[in-house]
């Protein structure tokens, strides 16, 4: 019988510093055969481990359309992420996954897409953004609204530039008041306010929102005001997890196991959950 807790071994092939304490790893399967057989869909997550330090849960931050590797972006915050940051290109880490459900991007074909992200929550949306951008013809207007505390805290700065330069994406970036620099040309204000100002057309549009609980709490009513129906608004939740397989018993919100039935939910599904976020 297979050991469900056995990770794949992966080699760090590249890394990028995104913001203070935030780093992206590009990972390749150490075993080529395993790499060929590995498939995931956008929205799924995994458990990344440093042997000797432990496992930590993050989304897969790259798009499944980029088949040769996966990427993860993490902020140094605890024991495992500290150990991850001490690793270098060429080092080996463990990866279990892919786990959880997916963003139903097939269902979104022919529609406008509005992505709203705050801070370190851009990585899970980056996977679905690139997935949709790699299939750009299938979607109508694409709007990305992204905010962070300060200019320095914005992640994927190079990709933000790339998105800004494209004329088939409407990118709005913002930083919290006081987080701007003299050179900053984006907006200054909190994400919910900026979404309200940007007022994306809700007609035939899907909104995908990810951010800290407080941002989500204030953004959902704004989207509702703009005419977005609850079943047209998607988010991805993260709760503390250990197994990712519906056994360790801690990521549930009421009856819903975020690791199995999630992490992707519609605002409608969330509205039916008990207030235990």
């Amino acid at each position: 019988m297979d050991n469900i807790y056995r990770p794949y071994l992966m080699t760090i092939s590249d890394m990028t510093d995104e913001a203070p304490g935030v780093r992206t790893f590009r990972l390749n399967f150490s075993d080529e055969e395993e790499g060929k057989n590995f498939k995931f869909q956008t929205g799924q997550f995994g458990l990344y481990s440093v042997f000797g330090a432990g496992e930590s849960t993050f989304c897969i931050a790259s798009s499944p359309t980029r088949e040769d590797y996966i990427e993860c972006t993490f902020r140094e915050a605890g024991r495992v992420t500290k150990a991850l940051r001490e690793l270098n290109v060429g080092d080996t880490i463990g990866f279990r996954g892919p786990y959880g459900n997916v963003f139903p991007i097939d269902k979104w074909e022919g529609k406008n897409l509005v992505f709203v992200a705050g801070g370190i929550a851009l990585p899970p949306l980056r996977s679905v953004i690139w997935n949709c951008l790699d299939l750009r013809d299938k979607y109508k207007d694409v709007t990305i609204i992204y905010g962070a505390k300060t200019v320095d805290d914005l992640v994927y700065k190079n990709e933000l530039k790339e998105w800004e330069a494209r004329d088939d994406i409407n990118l709005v970036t913002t930083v919290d008041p006081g987080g701007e620099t003299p050179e900053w040309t984006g907006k200054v204000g909190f994400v919910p306010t900026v979404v309200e100002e940007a007022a994306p057309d809700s007609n035939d549009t899907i909104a995908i929102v990810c951010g800290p609980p407080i941002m989500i709490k204030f953004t959902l009513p704004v989207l509702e005001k703009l005419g977005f129906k609850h079943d047209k608004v998607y988010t991805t939740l993260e709760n503390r997890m250990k197994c990712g397989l519906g056994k360790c018993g801690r990521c549930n919100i009421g009856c819903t196991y975020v690791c199995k039935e999630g992490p992707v939910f519609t605002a409608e599904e969330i509205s039916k959950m008990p207030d235990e976020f």
Partner: protein
Amino acid sequence: MEKLLNKNKFDTLIAGLKKQGYKTVAPKKDNRLVTLEEVQDASEISLDHVITNNSIKEFFFPKTEKILSYTLDKNKVEMEEPKGFAVKSVIFGTRPCDAFSLPVMDKVFNWDCSDKFWVERREAITIVTISCDKSDSYCFCTSVGLAPDAKQGSDVLLTKISNDEYLVETVTEKGENLVKEMESVFSDPPGTPDRQVATVEEKFDLKKIKPWLDDNFEHDVWDEFSNKCIGCGACTFVCPTCHCFDIVDECTMTKGDRVKNWDGCQFTMFTMHTSGHNPRSTQGMRWRQRIMHKFKYYVEKFDSTLCVGCGRCSRVCPADMNISEMLELIETEAGK
């Protein structure tokens, strides 16, 4: 298959099991505590108790267990699968409530994907249960659909029929094979055995619990009842059906193990996010999770109550929180 087993044959039975390559686990008395642990000899077995201090859980899902071993050499990681964790054993003299916890827990450890550490131990271990001939005020198996002589989860069920004799009933093929293997210790059962089974009072009506839980995620009882809870988590550790766990690495510079450790929903850190945000920030929320998980969530997911009525959580609680009192309170609230 029905047989008779005389107490004076316990010696031969345990010695015979050992000869057949079984490890035997049985209730053993050590000062005030009676615990299920490995025995070498029938003289170590104690049967004069209501229920063992520890549950059967740790023999299938140990307090701590290796789920992966590895060696580290510069950039090279070699992984090694843990071996030898499923040891051919007989658990002798456990109680029906504990035995029933096994098929209940099979559901979570097998749904979607199987945890081999649980499954392989389940295959390797044969359960010989002894029906309860006495109970105490903490027992409430009859309130959760069980009985002091329930067979579910056992391979063989022994029921006292006189001071020295037990009626032996095989429940599964595994149990039947065990009895056949040890055939010489058993004799033919009497025609109308006088089964000595404890009475356990029915404390609440299970049917009334879930409908109330469905509607009362927000209710004052959660905080009120758990005011005295000190969050020690003892209830979760002695519980045969609490299955929450943590996964951590334990290692030196050159080698290590990834281990699965018991964890519990009553601890503050259990759900705390890296950011410091905690979805279950109060003891009331954590207590609610324990009750909801056992009597609502598990029922919805797996069509089974995650409680076997053993009463251990209430017996060990240093703050004297009693789960059946909580459920009686819910029944009262449901009747309002």
